[in-house]
C-alpha cells in the first residue's frame, strides 16, 4: 500500500514538473555522454596500447638507395653490414635488453605496406626498393630505447633508429588531451545538472507543501515524505544516464565499428559491447548525484 502510494506520489510529481524534469533528463544526458566519451577514449587508448605495444617496438632501418643519412654514405646497406648488425643484436651487450628481433626485408616491408594502405592510391606510386629493410626489435623494457638507439644509429648501413612507440605516444597524448577536455565539459555540465536537480526538487517540494504539511501532521515517516522527491530526481537522472549510454553505444556501433574501422583497418577499436561496461557506471553516477543533491535540498527546504 505504501509502495503504491509512493509510486503515485512520484508520478504526480513528475507530471506536475514535467518541463523541469525534461530539462534534468537532458542536462544529465549531455553531461554523462561527455563522461562516457572520456571513458571510451581511455578504453580506446588502453586497447591500442595493448595491441600495439606488443607489435611495435624499436625499428632499426637500414640504408637503401635513396638514403641521405651519414651512415649511408656507401649507398644501400650491404649483406655484411646486415650480418654485422645481427651479430651485434645477439651480442651480450645488447641481448639482455631485448626479447627477440626479426629482420624485415624490403620485399616484406612492401608487402606490409600494401596491406596497410590497400585502400589508398599511394600503393601504386611506391615501389619495393623505396622501402627500407629493418630489424624489428622487441624490447624487454621499452623504456630502455636509448640503449639501442645509441648503439645502432652510428653503425654503417643504418639509416635511422626509430622508437615507434613515440609515434603512438603522440597519438595517445592527443587522445588523453581529448578525454581531459571531455571530462572538463562533463564537470561543468554535471555542475549544471546538480543545480538544476536542486531547483527542480525545491519547486516540487514547494508545489506540494500542502500535502507534505498534512503528511507531517498525521505522522507520516520521514521516508514516506521524502522518498517521492528523491526518487523523482533519481528517476530523471537515470533516464538521462540511459539516454547517454544508448548514444555512446550507437556511436561505438555505427561510427567506431562502422565507418572508422573501415577506414583504419589496422587500428583495433573498442567494441560496442565494451561500451556496455560504461553504462552501469553512468547510471550509478547519475543516480548518486541526483540522490545526494535532492537529499541535501530536502534537508533545507522540506521540514519533516
Amino acid at each position, binding site marked *: 500500500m*505504501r509502495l503504491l*502510494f509512493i509510486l503515485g506520489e512520484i508520478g504526480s510529481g513528475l507530471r506536475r514538473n514535467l518541463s523541469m524534469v525534461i530539462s534534468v533528463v537532458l542536462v544529465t544526458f549531455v553531461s554523462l555522454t561527455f563522461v562516457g566519451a572520456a571513458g571510451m577514449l581511455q578504453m580506446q587508448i588502453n586497447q591500442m596500447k595493448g595491441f600495439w605495444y606488443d607489435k611495435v617496438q624499436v625499428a632499426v632501418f637500414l640504408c637503401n638507395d635513396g638514403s641521405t643519412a651519414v651512415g649511408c654514405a656507401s649507398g644501400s646497406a650491404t649483406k655484411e653490414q646486415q650480418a654485422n648488425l645481427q651479430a651485434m643484436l645477439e651480442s651480450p651487450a645488447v641481448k639482455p635488453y631485448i626479447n627477440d628481433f626479426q629482420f624485415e626485408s624490403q620485399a616484406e616491408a612492401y608487402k606490409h605496406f600494401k596491406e596497410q594502405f590497400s585502400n589508398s592510391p599511394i600503393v601504386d606510386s611506391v615501389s619495393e626498393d623505396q622501402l627500407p629493410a629493418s630489424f624489428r626489435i622487441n624490447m624487454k623494457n621499452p623504456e630502455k630505447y636509448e640503449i639501442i638507439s645509441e648503439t645502432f644509429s652510428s653503425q654503417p648501413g643504418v639509416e635511422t633508429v626509430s622508437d615507434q612507440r613515440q609515434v603512438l605516444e603522440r597519438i595517445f597524448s592527443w587522445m588523453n588531451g581529448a578525454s581531459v577536455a571531455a571530462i572538463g565539459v562533463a564537470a561543468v555540465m554535471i555542475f549544471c545538472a546538480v543545480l538544476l536537480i536542486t531547483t527542480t526538487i525545491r519547486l516540487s517540494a514547494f508545489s506540494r507543501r500542502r500535502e507534505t504539511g498534512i*503528511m507531517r501532521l*498525521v505522522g*507520516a515517516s520521514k521516508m514516506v515524505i521524502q522518498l517521492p522527491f528523491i526518487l523523482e530526481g533519481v528517476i530523471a537522472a537515470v533516464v538521462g544516464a540511459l539516454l547517454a549510454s544508448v548514444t555512446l553505444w550507437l556511436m561505438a556501433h555505427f561510427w567506431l565499428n562502422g565507418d572508422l574501422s573501415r577506414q583504419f583497418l589496422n587500428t583495433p577499436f573498442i567494441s560496442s559491447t565494451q561500451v556496455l561496461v560504461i553504462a552501469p557506471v553512468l547510471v550509478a553516477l547519475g543516480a548518486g548525484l541526483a540522490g545526494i543533491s535532492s537529499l541535501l535540498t530536502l534537508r533545507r527546504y522540506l521540514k519533516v
Partner: protein
Amino acid sequence: MIRFENVTKVYEQNARPALDSVSLEINRGEFTFLVGASGSGKSTFLRLILKEDKASSGSVYVAGQNVANISSWRVPKLRRGIGVVFQDFRLLPQKNVFANVAFAMQVIGKSRSIIRETVPEVLKTVGLEGKERRMPHELSGGEQQRVAIARAVVNRPGILLADEPTGNLDPITSMGIMGVLDKINQNGTTVVMATHDDDIVNEMRRRVVELKNGKVIRDEAKALYTSMIPVVGESRRLRDASGEELNRAQGAQL
C-alpha cells in the same frame, strides 16, 4: 495526557517569551478551551505539544512522555497519536472527500481494506455520510471543516488539537462543528481547542485556560469566556477594560 512543567518558549527575534513558565495539566478525556488575545501564546502551546517547536526551558509531557526525549525519527509516532484541525481546513483541493480522509491513512501505511472500512465510518461520525465523492470546493465551509476533523481523527488519536476551528465559520455552523468535536470527546479523545469564539465557550461550559502574554492567567472548570471570578495579580482589569486602555497597556509594555 498533556502536562506542561514551567515551560518557557522564547523565539529568538522576539524579546518577550511566547510562553512564560507555563505549568498545566490536561487529563485524558478532558475538553479544554484555550483562550486569549492573538499573540497570547495559544498557537505556541499547541506547537510544543506536536514537537513542532522545542521549549526553551521546562518540560512538555504528552501521553507520559517528555517530548524533548523523543528522537527526531520517532516524532512521526508522536504525531500519529495527535490529530490537528486548523482554521483554514487545509484540505487537498484535487482530492475528493474520501481521498482527503484516506490520505491520512495511506501515508502511514494502512492497508486498502482497512481504509475502505474506516473512512466511511469516520465520515458518518462527522455527519458527512454520502458526500464521499464531493470535491472540497463543492462543500460549504462547515462541511470542509468536518472533512478536516474526519482526517484528524481517522487514525484514532488520543488527542485532538484544534486551532480556532470555527474562526472562518458563521455561529450556527460553528455550533455544528462543536457538536462534532463534543462527540469525538465523548468517545474518549482529549480535545484542546484554541479559540476566540466567546459564544461557543459560553455555550459549552468546559474547562477554560486563559493565556495572556504567554502566562496562564485563568484556569477554570466549566467556565465562561470571560471570568466571573476576579483574578488575583496580573491586570485582570486591563483585559476587561475599554480598547483604549488595553492599547495603552500594550504600548507601555513594548
